[in-house]
């Protein structure tokens, strides 16, 4: 495929802070490319470098040209934290941005696409947060761009609106529009993107299609057993010493105690009953079972060094056949 966008060794610093540390990437024409990463990872700086709106070292080529020299009729941008003139209606705003281009789409059609037909004549400042963001997305679509940069397009949009916008972006991608988007919603990246790039500390930690990333970095499927509280204790009782996973799971699955839960990793959905039997066999009561396949969020947490345990499930117990540890950190044990 032809590359719509090629960046090599992009570097950008703000004082002592390194925002981009040698990022190289290539986006094919017609591809949807998602950038994910923690706050401050460099996503917005990377979008700015790719659109030529920040001075970065390295090189960027958009349709074979420097981003500042490329035919701007072919580019659409939704910046992060973008607010257009607030006392224009949604229709006037889209007409304004449409008027900056020679070609483009019918304003009413774009308003319909972003779900604003009924509120088209409301001033921007009187629209809800989600409607404002959809207006801003519309402003990036009015010129019918070949390459669309969307920096957190669905932030502040309710779930229904977000899904409507996903369908719109899918339609654009199906029509051949190349889309580069940043997002904090992993489900959004997984659903929309042909490839996902995970940015951490100004560099790309991984780039691949979402399923491949999940397969490589997502880890195993996981059964979380919320243990029932022991009336005589502040929380569930320790697991009995004779608790063990059944033989058919023992080779592939691991378990560990995390706070008030027992987490069994590497267990297939069809083997949930076997874990339940093992708990029943040693008289362990539980309130709920949650089985979860690995997803892009697990990849994100793994590659950015963040963890669910570190964020909430404090208090570690034992794993395998060992005794209860006195304090964190987490230890994972083989069954």
């Amino acid at each position, binding site marked *: 495929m032809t590359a719509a966008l090629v960046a090599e060794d992009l570097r950008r610093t703000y004082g002592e802070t390194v925002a981009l540390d040698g990022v190289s990437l290539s986006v094919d024409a017609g591809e949807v490319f998602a950038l994910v990463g923690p706050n401050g990872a460099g996503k917005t700086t990377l979008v*700015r470098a790719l*659109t*030529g*709106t*920040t*001075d970065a070292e390295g090189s960027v080529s958009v349709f074979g040209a420097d981003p500042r020299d490329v035919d*701007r*009729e072919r*580019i*659409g*941008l*939704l*910046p*992060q*934290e*973008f*607010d*257009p*003139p607030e*006392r*224009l209606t949604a229709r*006037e*705003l889209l*007409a*304004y*941005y*449409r*008027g*900056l*281009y*020679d070609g483009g789409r019918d304003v009413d059609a774009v308003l319909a696409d972003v779900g604003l037909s009924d509120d088209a004549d409301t*001033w921007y400042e009187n629209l809800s947060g989600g409607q404002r963001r959809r207006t801003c997305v519309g*402003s990036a679509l009015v*010129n019918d761009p070949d390459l669309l*940069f969307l920096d957190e397009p669905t932030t502040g949009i309710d779930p229904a609106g977000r899904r409507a916008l996903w369908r719109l972006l899918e339609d654009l991608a199906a029509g051949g529009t190349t889309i580069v988007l940043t997002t904090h919603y992993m489900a959004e990246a997984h659903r929309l993107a042909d490839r996902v790039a995970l940015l951490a500390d100004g560099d790309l930690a991984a780039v691949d299609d979402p399923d491949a990333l999940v397969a490589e970095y997502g880890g195993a499927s996981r059964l979380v057993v919320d243990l029932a509280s022991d009336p005589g204790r502040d929380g569930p009782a320790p697991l009995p010493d004779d608790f063990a996973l059944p033989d058919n799971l023992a080779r592939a699955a691991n378990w560990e105690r995390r706070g008030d839960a027992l987490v069994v990793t590497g267990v297939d959905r069809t083997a949930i009953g076997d874990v339940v039997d093992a708990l029943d066999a040693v008289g362990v009561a539980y309130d709920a079972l949650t089985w979860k396949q690995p997803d892009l969020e697990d990849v994100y947490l793994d590659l950015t060094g963040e963890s669910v345990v570190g964020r909430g499930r404090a208090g570690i117990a034992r794993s395998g056949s060992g005794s209860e540890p006195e304090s964190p950190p987490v230890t994972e044990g083989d069954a």
Partner: protein
Amino acid sequence: MSAPRRVRASFRAGWHSFLRRRTAVFFTFFFPLIIVVIFGALVRTEPTGGLFAEDPGYYVPGYLAVVVLFTPLSRVGSEVARYRESNRFEKLATTPLSRSEWLLAQTLVNVVVIGLAALLLLALVLLLTGAELLVGPTALAALVAYVVVGVALFCGLGAILGSLAGSQDGVIAASNSIALPLLFLSETFVPPEMLPAWFRPAMGLSPLTYFSRGVRAATFDPIDAGAVAPAVSNFAILVALALAFLTIGAATLPRTD
């Protein structure tokens, strides 16, 4: 065809944005009224001598300078700061609209707004102060030309201020600090003879001086006293300064973060 279309779209957006900020509209037109009432009353103290001892018509360039100087300086400066804070320049940098086209559209909005304010101001001056002006077609055409070029000049300066100042607050503070001295030290309300001799050459550094001299030459000084030449020469200087400020203003507008 593209550039006029882009400027037209930007003008329309800027015009509607201005008209819908009622406070801004009110004070844009209320400000000249206050100035004329206050200064008009002072001018009427002429028989007692003092600061405003000249003929009322002498002060017309000063009244006009109030709107030609203050409004574009603060409006364009604030607009630049607002655009930067809202990431609008980042968006515009990826559209075909150039920085000079953006500034041209803003200037045109200000020309219309300030043209209307100047018309109101002029009517009030004639009505309240008893000023008598030359009202022939040439004088009126010169007046219009001076207002248009003066507004353009201070739009350019406003763009420079807005680009250099870090915030809207900074723009307002900077524009007041620049505009107030200019207003009183540019042959507007204070005749040069009232200032120390050593200071008078410095008045040539103020762009507003050429506006005052030119407008006065076109509308107040008798034609037969050779007023045409000063009106033209000051206008030429004002045009050159306006082009310089607009060029620098457009070049300093933010394009990147």
